[in-house]
């Protein structure tokens, strides 16, 4: 679980945050102002300060927020001046945008606000469609607008080049004021409430957010244009209303509810990807006709409300089709306000003691949760604020809280108030009445209705909540913090999270947990060391001198039996019931060994099949949406590409067998404990993680160990890619781009008992999408309908069209996965889509494009549904930046504190260099952002710190001058890709560089020398390659498709290049290994 923050404001207007790992509230020190409300999301927190302005606190990240400004310089040829900026009158501007329609000279670009700064000056982009242009970046054409080429031809009459400049958002980790201006000048009245959300409405990379605000006069405003590159947004747009609003709440998705002054609630409808503001409001009655609603909080699929009598209500029947829900359920507890955060988790501030409460037991199946539990942790400044409170109490002697509350006014920075320097107090709902003995007091809050009255009188009523508690009370007032507002929108907890918030006994002893993952404190505890030492002493004392004694118990055979289903070897292939037995016995050297027997009937005849445990090369769980299946491979069966496929009756039974077989296989090969540092790591296409202990003969010449004899065993966890080096530093990336670092443990998942360690195993989750396609055919009468030709594919199908996949019958990939969202249209499919997500084509199956043309008769759109897996494994998360690729230097550091170069690419395409990675701290400390002119997709670092990368446009780059002193290098050298090929992936060994292009061709870089590290040209090696991995000795491993097996061609086979020699770095031929288990690459070391 990554660390995330719960935000809260106390009644003094001080902003605090509580980390999910922490055990105390940390005050937000740089908030010079008191705040009224905050609304947090993962990347930032918005707040309304006492001056009624809106402030934004963007959390700093190792990847800065950068925006690329671009403009084009256009020139025309004439016989006199050659190419010059003298254009024809009909031509575009001399400086323009890409279309030529807008005039854009360099000096017309300004920073959007004082929160931005320029990264550097303007410079010319020399990269053209993945190829270096040289020639100062000019591209040539016959005329504007036309197709540009990088070479000047005889008929090139015009040319243009692109200038780029980056600006960077600098106001991170501080409260930056957002100018309160609508599109038509300053807003008439100040804001009173604010709510941020909506990041799930569109796809992640853009990072769009919805920000809704309520003004004192009850108007609602929507902030336009907030997205990743523009955290502040553009401006406010008023949203028309059926009444006057007091408070609004916006969920992560399309749920927006607001409370009207009269106590009813309104629900926003028509919120879509194209229209995040929505289109209309629908009124929903208050849960209690006598007491109107005063507060509402929405999440993904839930709505909670509070009525004037402080009763808490839960709305039934909310889903994306019915944002209104169906009815109210009264809940236990009296709250002042409620907030719904990530995963629909709920927080509230109790009416009675003003403490923050967390709703326990909220799960996707039980969204209303079970019970309220007080968040009971101290504040970091408890001692400090104590003293400050007592100093202020000098001014307000005789003020009491709780029943006899007095409020003390404070000075405000805002001087334009009509109320003079003394500011009033506003705090919703908590204070029924306040005793107005305190002389400087001018206004008191008496719940929302009261405020409403005040607001009518004094338009610019300020509303700073500031109470001071009396020190004459027997107990220090600050013993018990009083909270005014809480926001969990950025707080990533769920019902499985282990929180330290409820147990203050140990709170102060361990306030901050270190991020270094290498050695857990429990592992190094003195008591454990003592036991280990004493046990080995005991063995020495009691056994070493007596080895010649006879053993009391003789070894014998042990058998485990069971029933299973077997995918039989002969046609027609089908599942048949078989008896299954494992006979285990002690081998000659005391090692365990065994034989697997599979008894079946063939033509009424009893037969059996067997496999020696020490010949099994891999046990793989296989995805099957209804059966619990796994496959057993031996070297022989790998050659045939035909494993023993088995299905157990229950998941538990399969796990029992897999765990037992896995232990037996490891025992028979003498493998125990965690993988060695030299281990080879790989992941299957299903996401299971496997390791292989390399034998010394793996690289021997001329007869290396054949790939099909390598033994792979599983470790827990679920990953999309894994990278390791020979020092035992292993990083993985999940399907949801979450980054994980190997903890040194082993086991997890189904591996229990002996096959796992007790430490360093953590919960791991992964999220991926299941895709189905909706297909339609055009007919002249009704247009596009779901009525296809009889020969057509299913109208709801998989990508191939061969399998029918409807929304209802499509299941998660295996019983371990659970749906976590509903079906949604996927706009991110390659080829582009129209506004409704459709892609068009002349016929099935061809290539699709995102707009309709006259030649198109069919269309399809992709639907995606997220599912989630929760498992365990020796992995710990490296927050917070999601990655798409990672690479670790294959060898190098020898001392445990020497930094290990590690590079990565974020899922947005940023290139990152990890600092502080050592053997002791394999997770490293922070990311260093390495600027690029375009997003990247693949990266690899070689044994001599050569960094090669592939950009999204398919071109290759070499990073110059990467050394220990300058770990991020100095500049990128553009390497042209092979002719007409877009490169996909790169891997660098000690000296050699291999790439794979989009068509599966494997390319070798020729001419690499120390003086010319960029090389000279690409040489084609092989086709049908999915992925390549080059080791530190330039060993080449690939994942190949279409490898011949006994029954069929297989995909995803691990192959090893034979004949790689110092003088022959390209090698000679391939050795085909395991598959079709779909192993995707690991860095072999």
């Amino acid at each position, binding site marked *: 679980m990554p660390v995330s923050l719960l935000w809260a404001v106390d009644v003094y207007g001080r902003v605090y945050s509580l980390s999910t790992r922490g055990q105390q509230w940390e005050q937000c020190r740089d908030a010079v102002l008191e705040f009224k409300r905050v609304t947090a999301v993962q990347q930032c927190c918005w707040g309304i300060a006492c001056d009624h302005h809106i402030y934004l606190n963007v959390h700093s990240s190792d990847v800065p927020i950068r925006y690329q400004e671009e403009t084009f310089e256009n020139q025309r040829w004439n016989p006199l001046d050659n190419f010059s900026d003298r254009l024809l009158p009909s031509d575009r501007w001399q400086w323009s945008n890409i279309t030529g329609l807008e005039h854009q000279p360099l000096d017309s670009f300004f920073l959007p606000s004082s929160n931005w700064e320029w990264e550097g000056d303007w410079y010319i982009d020399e990269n053209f469609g993945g190829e270096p242009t040289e020639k100062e970046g000019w591209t040539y054409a016959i005329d504007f607008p036309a197709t540009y080429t990088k070479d000047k031809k005889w008929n090139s009459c015009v040319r243009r080049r692109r200038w780029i400049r980056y600006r960077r958002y600098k106001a991170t980790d501080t409260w930056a004021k957002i100018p309160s201006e609508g599109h038509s000048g300053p807003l008439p009245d100040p804001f009173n409430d604010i709510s941020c959300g909506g990041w799930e409405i569109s796809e992640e990379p853009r990072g769009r957010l919805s920000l809704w605000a309520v003004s004192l006069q009850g108007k609602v405003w929507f902030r336009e244009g907030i997205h990743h590159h523009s955290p502040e947004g553009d401006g406010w747009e008023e949203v028309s209303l059926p009444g006057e609003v007091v408070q609004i709440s916006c969920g992560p998705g399309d749920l927006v509810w607001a409370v009207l002054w009269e106590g009813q609630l309104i629900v926003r409808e028509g919120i879509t990807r194209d229209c995040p503001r929505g289109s209309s409001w629908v009124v929903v009655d208050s849960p209690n006709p006598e007491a109107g609603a005063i507060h509402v909080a929405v999440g993904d699929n839930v709505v909670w409300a509070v009525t004037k009598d402080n009763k808490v209500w839960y709305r039934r029947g909310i889903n994306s089709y019915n944002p209104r829900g169906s009815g109210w359920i009264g809940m236990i507890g009296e709250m002042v306000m409620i907030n719904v955060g990530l995963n629909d988790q709920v927080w509230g501030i109790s009416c009675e003691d003003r403490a923050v409460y967390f709703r326990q037991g909220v799960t996707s199946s039980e969204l209303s949760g079970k019970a309220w539990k007080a968040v009971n942790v101290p504040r970091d400044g408890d001692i400090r604020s104590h003293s400050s409170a007592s100093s202020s109490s000098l001014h307000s002697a005789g003020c009491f809280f709780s029943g006899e509350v007095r409020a003390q006014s404070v000075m405000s920075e805002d001087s334009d108030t009509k109320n003079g320097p003394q500011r009033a107090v506003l705090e919703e709902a908590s204070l029924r009445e306040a005793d107005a003995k305190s002389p400087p007091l001018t206004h008191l809050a008496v719940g929302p209705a009261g405020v409403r009255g005040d607001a009518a009188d004094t338009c610019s009523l300020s509303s700073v909540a500031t109470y001071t508690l009396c020190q004459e009370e027997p107990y220090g007032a600050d013993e018990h913090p009083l909270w005014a507002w809480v926001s969990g929108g950025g707080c990533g907890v769920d019902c499985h999270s282990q929180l330290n918030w409820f147990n203050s006994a140990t709170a102060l002893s361990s306030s901050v947990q270190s991020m270094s993952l290498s050695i857990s404190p429990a592992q190094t505890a003195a008591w454990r060391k003592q036991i280990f030492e004493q046990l080995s002493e005991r063995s020495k004392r009691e056994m070493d001198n*007596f080895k010649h004694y006879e053993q009391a118990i003789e070894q014998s055979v042990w058998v485990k039996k069971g029933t299973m289903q077997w995918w039989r070897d002969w046609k027609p292939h089908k599942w048949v019931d078989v008896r299954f037995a494992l006979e285990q016995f002690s081998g000659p050297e005391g090692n365990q060994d065994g034989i697997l027997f599979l008894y079946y009937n063939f033509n009424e005849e009893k037969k059996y099949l067997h496999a020696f445990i020490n010949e099994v090369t891999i046990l793989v769980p296989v995805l099957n949406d209804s059966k619990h299946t796994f496959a057993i491979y031996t070297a022989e069966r790998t050659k045939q590409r035909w494993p023993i496929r088995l299905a157990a009756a229950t998941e538990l039974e399969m796990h029992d067998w897999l765990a037992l077989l896995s232990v037996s296989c490891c025992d028979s090969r003498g493998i125990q404990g965690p993988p060695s540092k030299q281990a080879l790591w790989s992941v299957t296409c299903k996401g299971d993680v496997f390791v292989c202990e390399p034998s010394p003969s793996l690289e021997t010449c001329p007869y290396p160990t054949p790939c099909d004899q390598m033994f792979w065993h599983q470790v827990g966890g679920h990953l999309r890619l894994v990278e390791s080096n020979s020092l035992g530093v292993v990083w993985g990336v999940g399907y949801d781009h979450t980054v994980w670092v190997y903890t040194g443990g082993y086991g997890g998942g189904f591996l229990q008992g002996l096959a796992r360690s007790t430490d360093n195993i953590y919960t791991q989750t992964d999220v991926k999408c299941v895709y189905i396609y909706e297909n339609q055919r055009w007919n002249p009468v009704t247009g596009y309908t779901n009525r296809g030709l009889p020969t057509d594919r299913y109208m709801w199908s998989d990508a191939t069209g061969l399998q029918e996949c409807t929304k209802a019958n499509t299941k998660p990939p295996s019983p371990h996965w659970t749906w976590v969202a509903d079906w949604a249209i996927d706009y991110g499919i390659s080829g582009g889509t129209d506004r409704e997500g459709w892609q068009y084509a002349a016929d099935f199956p061809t290539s699709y494009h995102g707009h309709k043309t006259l030649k198109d008769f069919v269309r399809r759109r992709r639907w995606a549904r997220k599912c989630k897996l929760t498992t365990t494994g020796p992995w710990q998360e490296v927050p917070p930046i999601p990655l798409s690729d990672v690479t670790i230097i294959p060898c190098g550091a020898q001392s445990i504190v020497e930094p290990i170069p590690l590079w990565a690419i974020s899922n947005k395409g940023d290139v990152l260099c990890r600092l502080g990675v050592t053997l002791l701290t394999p997770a490293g400390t922070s990311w260093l952002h390495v600027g690029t002119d375009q997003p990247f997709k693949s990266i690899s670092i070689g044994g001599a710190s050569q960094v090669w990368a592939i950009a999204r446009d398919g071109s290759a780059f070499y990073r110059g001058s990467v050394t220990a002193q300058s770990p991020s290098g100095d500049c990128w050298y553009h390497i042209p890709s092979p002719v007409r090929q877009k490169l996909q992936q790169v891997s660098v060994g000690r000296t050699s560089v291999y790439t794979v292009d989009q068509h599966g061709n494997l390319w070798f870089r020729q001419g690499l020398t120390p003086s010319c590290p960029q090389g000279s040209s690409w040489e084609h090696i092989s086709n049908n390659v999915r992925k390549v991995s080059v080791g530190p000795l330039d060993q080449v491993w690939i994942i190949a498709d279409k490898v011949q097996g006994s029954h069929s061609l297989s995909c995803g086979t691990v192959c090893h290049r034979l004949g790689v020699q110092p003088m022959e770095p390209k090698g000679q031929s391939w050795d085909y290994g395991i598959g079709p288990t779909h192993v995707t690459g690991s860095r072999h070391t």
Partner: protein
Amino acid sequence: MADDKDVLRDVWFGRIPTCFTLYQDEITEREAEPFYLLLPRVSYLTLVTDKVKKHFLKVMKAEDVEEMWFDFEGTPLKWHYPIGLLFDLHASNTALPWSITVHFKNFPERDLLHCPSNSVIEAHFMSSIKEADALKHKSQVINDMQKKDHKQLWMGLQNDKFDQFWAMNRKLMEYPTEEGGFRYIPFRIYLTMSDRPFIQKLFRPISSDGYTHTLGDLLKEVYPMAISSDDESKRYQVVIHGIEPLLETPLQWLSEHLSHPDNFLHISVIPAPSD
């Protein structure tokens, strides 16, 4: 050694070199040679001494042989205690091999239980496991197991099959993560100098306020005498499987890793050697 799993193996494969000598008063046809054997610490005397019996019967007449029993320096050895416990309790600080005297006569009815067959040992072993699980999981785990699973535990012990035993025993060692440990820790504390055979009480691995109990906490609660204060010299040794774990060792960890196959943590408190 770096991993907890190795602890399980070390515990399981702990052996005590033993020299069996026939009691001098037994009538033999010729002189009986001593018999040397490596005894598994986690097993039971009568389960692993078939070879001893065979060895001595060779020199004895059938009519002189009754039920076999053992003593160490005059103390009859209870077969229903694990061998390692017997050794720690009576012979910790003596020279190896452990010298055990074998008797075939004058069975000490007051001190020992009869052990006519291995099924008696099995019954005793299984009842200990059940009692331990009652403490740990309100018997839920053991009751969910099938007869063959119970058999697997016993056969694992009987045939010294670590994997076979632990494949099943791991289920008995599981607990809900949110509870942080077993309900109660199955333990027995043995005192050489007391008339009581052992002390057994209900004791939780985690206190109600979330504090992790240690071995020291247990002793403080159950037998405070065993802990010597800082200013005095050590009076007692607290021994489990022949080692003295530190008092700050978490009890839950001890229960998971240093329990005998019967799922009890057998703790010996013996006087410290006065050298």
